[in-house]
């Protein structure tokens, strides 16, 4: 059992994170450009909490996860993990950091080597990082990990294609757990799963968090799932953070029009309620991050935008204690 963590201390601090991708021009000579995947975001995750990160595809939420994991080199800003600035660490130093910071992917199938048995997949990091050096003890540890994620010891002999989607995601979780991390970045961990299985995995993640005092960054597009699992929720739009608040505050009293639109778009499995509900259907599509709008990036689709919105970038302000929003009108 790991020691009881100090809850007040932030485990991860992200300050002014920027990630730009340069894209080359096409063959026909269209000019290249810079994709502003993340355009200056700040947030912290406290020990033991779950921060939900929501937004539509292309908003930068997955890139944020990859930057924290240092799978991408940030263009700017700082990432402080367990009190250490990891923004510029070299490969060797990163190795120890990576043990403490694990990831669970959306598609467990493509992240598992099809030629390795589940037992081998789980034993490999234990061996490579020298966590469990003895072979027999490693097998014990693999069994233990399988049990922790609700699989049976006999699953160790199976290969990824012999498992169902839910079981594969359990293996993905076990692999992350094997390193005894403090932070797990869950990148859309349930969106590829069937509805009836999603709940199993969410429950499992919650159980594990309680048992091992894990901290989660939970990246997802499904607002109902995020509401269920997160303590605080951050909403991203086009590389910017538009709102950040406690779960309850955000869902009951969203301050940003984009958050409101998102919430209203979520269908509710109750026809009567759906019939009564006010729908706020957004116009248009998410603009290209190659060429983001001026001012507030949301203004072209915003139902309440005023003149100022197209001219001036709204900063992320703390409107109420602990409730931040980037909107001139909030």
């Amino acid at each position: 059992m790991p020691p009881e963590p100090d809850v007040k201390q932030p485990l991860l601090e992200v300050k002014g994170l920027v990630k730009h991708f340069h894209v080359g021009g096409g063959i026909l000579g269209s000019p290249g450009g810079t994709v502003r995947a993340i355009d200056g975001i700040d947030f912290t995750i406290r020990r033991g909490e779950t921060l939900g990160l929501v937004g539509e595809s292309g908003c930068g939420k997955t890139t944020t996860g990859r930057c924290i994991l240092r799978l991408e080199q940030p263009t700017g800003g700082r990432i402080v993990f367990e009190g250490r600035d990891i923004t510029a660490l070299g490969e060797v130093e990163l190795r120890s950091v990576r043990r403490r910071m694990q990831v669970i992917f959306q598609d467990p199938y493509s992240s598992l080597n099809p030629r390795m048995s589940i037992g081998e997949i789980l034993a490999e990091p234990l061996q490579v990082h020298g966590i469990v050096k003895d072979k027999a003890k490693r097998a014990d540890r693999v069994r233990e990990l399988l049990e922790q994620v609700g699989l049976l010891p006999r699953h160790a002999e199976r290969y990824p294609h012999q498992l169902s989607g839910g079981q594969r995601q359990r293996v993905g979780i076990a692999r992350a757990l094997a390193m005894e991390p403090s932070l797990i970045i869950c990148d859309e961990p349930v969106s590829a799963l069937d509805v009836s299985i999603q709940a199993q995995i969410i429950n499992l993640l919650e159980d594990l968090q309680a048992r091992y005092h894990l901290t989660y960054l939970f990246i997802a597009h499904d607002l109902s799932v995020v509401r269920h699992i997160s303590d605080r929720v951050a909403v991203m739009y086009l590389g910017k953070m538009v709102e950040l608040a406690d779960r309850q505050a955000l869902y009951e009293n969203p301050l940003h029009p984009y958050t409101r639109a998102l919430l209203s778009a979520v269908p509710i499995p109750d026809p009567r309620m759906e019939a009564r509900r006010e729908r706020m259907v957004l116009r248009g599509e998410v603009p290209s991050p190659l060429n983001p709008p001026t001012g507030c990036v949301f203004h072209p689709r915003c139902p309440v935008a005023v003149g100022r919105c197209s001219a001036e970038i709204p900063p992320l302000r703390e409107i109420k204690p602990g409730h931040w929003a980037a909107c001139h009108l909030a």
Partner: protein
Amino acid sequence: MAFYILKRLLAMIPTMLGVAVLIFLLLRVVPGDAVEARYLGEGGQYQSQELMQMERKKLGLDQPLWKQFVTWMAGLARLDFGLSMWTGAPISEEIELRFALSLQLAIMASTLATLLAIPLGILAAIKQDTWIDYAVRVFSIAGLAMPSFWLGILMILSMLIFFKWLPPMVFTPLWVNPWENLAQLIWPALAVGYRYSAVGTRMMRSSMLEVLREDYIRTARAKGLWLKLILSRHAVKNAILPVLTIISLEFAFLLGGLVVTEQVFNLNGLGMLFVEAIARRDYTLTQALVMLVATFFLIVNFVVDIAYAWLDPRIRYR
């Protein structure tokens, strides 16, 4: 577009420079030089050191390596490949005719390969696991299993035995006498083209099968399109890209790589010249040939990229 082409062409320079340095050094690692190869060649008769030194001086082989390299590079920059160390003739003259033959043969063989591979591959894919598919498979595996020079020998022998006829032995450029020219080159083109079609056929088949499983083919069927239209409009253009790559690279390879086939058909092509140049330690000629083939590879690659863009709009606009 012009900018892109310019950029790509400029990007070739460092590659070519690398190739140049590499081949320059590699050649000089091999023991012996053109003078030794010439005067200790046939019977090991000894020639006086004086004569050998004189010859070396004539060829510039007495110069330090870096000077030889600089001289060569300076020539290249003016597109002057220099003189062959073996014959003393300008290299452009040595290569010219052989290049015409090799280029024509490569074009003919690649064309034949393409003409065989694409319809056969499509046929095998749409008749997957039927006897037609198996027949195509046997045909193409036979092509792979038989080296083209061996097929060439078979062809020559059968022509000799059954028709008492042999293709012309001397290359006539196409524009001089097309009939003579084709009478000589069609056979090696068939032998080589058949062999290279095999890879293309397999590739076309699997690529086609892959495309036929794509969602947009299902969409096309759901629209009520019939098979021929689906194949011609929706599938072939998508499936052809990998085949195009393979055949194009084969084309560049064919240009300088058909040593044995050239021997069998007595073709005066670049392949034999290449081998002889190496054996004779004809540095200048070998270097020029390597540069030529490397340039061709780069150009073919470039053309393939352009063709990709033409066939696949996703690349064009990216």
